[in-house]
């Protein structure tokens, strides 16, 4: 098991390295993207551009620039081209918003996804199942940002039930914090809840038809025990792995939601950086997001091995 983890860690680092290199190259081969030119502004003199180039090291070789940038990311010295801010600081500032959004939405979508999936499965074929499935499919078919806009219009601008966005620190005022996040949470959760309820329904139906569930009933276990101990335990495995992947991907920032609800999180920062074609923050945000994706991928693989002993111990039939 230790070797398995070690190999995965090395793989992770390799992937992150590749991601950083690709990002670096992509943004250094765009035409008209001379950062010195951009920083100097519209009416820059050649001398100004020249001095900026020297100051920022844009005349170094590409590999050299890459190494310098990577070093600065880890020492916390990375400064953005436009705005000259410390990139790491901005990211750290954005963490509470992004994480609040993701964790809250995740709690909602896990709860409803599992609840609806469970109800759908145990009453498969009935009206409740059909209704919940219809809701789920609609949920996953909606363009999230359009929904957000509609929510804002009817629940905020027209009726002022909910605030239009912005963020309140959790430590300052927990109720207000939640109040400001409800719309973003719900908007984000609808899509995932729909998806998860269908995954769970499908998984449960598969499991309920497995021979070992029949055996469990045949040996006289109560229906509750059969459901809880045999059906759910096995049905939730795909949900757990899926959740790891989705949550990991989300922690890198939810650009659309953060933008629409004015949450100054990492997603928002990423969008700004991209619009300004500002490589340092882009690099940092991409690595930040990629890091979580890769970490959670590995966590999910390990969790899967833990949840399914066949994977853990290898399926060898002996003796």
């Amino acid at each position, binding site marked *: 098991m230790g070797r398995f983890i070690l190999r995965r860690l090395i793989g992770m680092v390799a992937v992150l390295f590749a991601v950083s290199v*690709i990002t670096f190259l992509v943004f250094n081969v765009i035409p008209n993207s001379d950062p010195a030119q951009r920083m100097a502004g519209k009416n820059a003199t050649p001398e100004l551009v020249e001095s900026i180039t020297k100051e920022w090291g844009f005349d170094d070789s590409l590999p050299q620039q890459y190494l310098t940038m990577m070093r600065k990311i880890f020492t916390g010295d990375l400064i953005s081209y436009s705005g000259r801010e410390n990139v790491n600081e901005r990211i750290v500032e954005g963490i509470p918003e992004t994480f609040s959004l993701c964790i809250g939405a995740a709690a909602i979508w896990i709860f409803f996804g599992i609840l609806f999936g469970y109800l759908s499965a145990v009453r498969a074929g009935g009206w409740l199942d059909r209704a919940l499935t219809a809701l789920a499919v609609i949920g996953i*078919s909606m*363009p999230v940002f*359009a929904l957000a806009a509609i929510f804002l*219009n009817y629940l905020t601008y027209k009726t002022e039930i909910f605030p239009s966005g912005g963020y309140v620190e959790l430590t300052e005022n927990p109720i207000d914090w939640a109040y400001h996040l409800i719309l973003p949470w719900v908007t984000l959760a609808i899509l995932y809840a729909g998806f998860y309820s269908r995954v769970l329904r499908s998984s449960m139906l598969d499991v309920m038809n497995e021979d070992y569930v029949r055996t469990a009933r045949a040996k006289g276990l109560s229906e509750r025990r059969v459901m809880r101990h045999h059906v759910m335990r096995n049905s939730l495995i795909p949900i757990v792995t899926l959740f790891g992947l989705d949550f990991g991907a989300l922690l890198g920032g939810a650009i659309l939601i953060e933008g629409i609800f004015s949450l100054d999180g990492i997603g928002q920062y990423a969008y700004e950086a991209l619009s300004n074609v500002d490589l340092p923050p882009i690099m940092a945000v991409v690595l930040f997001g990629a890091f979580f*994706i890769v970490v959670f*991928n590995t966590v999910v693989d390990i969790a899967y091995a833990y949840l399914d002993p066949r994977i853990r111990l290898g399926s060898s039939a002996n003796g």
Partner: protein
Amino acid sequence: MASEDLIAATVPAGSSPWRLAARRLRRNRVALAFLGLFVLIVLFVLAAPLWANNVAHTGPNTTHTLQKITVDGEKRDVVDPTGQPIGPVWLGADGKFFLGADGRLGRDEMVRLMYGGRTSLFIGIVSALITTFFATLLGLLAGYYRGWTDTVIGRAMDVLWAFPVMLLAIALGLVLAVGGLQIGPIHLSGGSIWIPILIIGFVSIPYMARPVRGEVLALREKEFVEAAEAQGAGSLRVMFGELLPNLYSTIIVFFTLNIAGNMLLESALSFLGVGVQPPNSSWGTMIASGYTLITSAPLLTVIPGTMILLSVLAMNVFGDGLRDALDPKSKVRFEAHSGLSAQEGSETIEGVAP
């Protein structure tokens, strides 16, 4: 196994799995209804020139800011002095501005909806074709050859997967929208709709390649592959002649679901301004411009949003129906949910298929 014997015994001779699937699909009214919906939407957007020329007498980009039109005898501003566009006129002006005007520029919303839909659907379908093609190819190669090929392809997919999808798509969108793209002799300008098509098609590849690879790995172990190889079939023959046909059902289902996903991605990118570029428009760009008038003219957001929802919903429901039709197990699951094992369920229920 018992269930398989019974299925074989009761199915009329000469029924290919396709015919059985077709029969099952035909019985799924809901899926067929939504397929019909999608076809209707396609027809709707294809009718764009007809409507534009014969009913609305205007184009998708033609502005009418300072004009007036006659609605039920009354003369009204297309865009009133405060900048508020006219709402849905329906048939009040013989079809002109059926859904109203789209904002300060006073363009005909209905005409824009139809033309924008062409873009959205075209991008969704073509990008799905691209994704499906490459994902299948890569999945086949990686799953069949395993070893180095698998490792290389797998690593590449991993790296692609590690990029936060939206960031990657936005980055590519920004980069390519500015400079265009050069692939060999083909030059695509920054405003071409092929740019978003290629981007969306490309970033969706890993999500399909992985499952395809998984299936190929499983299929590979089956006897028919061994048999083909023993007969001297070369790798290409095995991959495309034996494995690929067994992937068709997976591919088809993924393709339809991919259309749905890609349409959502395109609308998101266009909303952010990095997808479809002016003068082209799509439902996503329409929402982007409608968004600024969300309080005064919510319909400008709701209508294109609803069109996206309906198209994506249609593809999702139909894709599910396809999956149910092609995979008999899922039908059994539906009936037998308490106490009946899959064996019993299929023994009695599948044996009834015709």
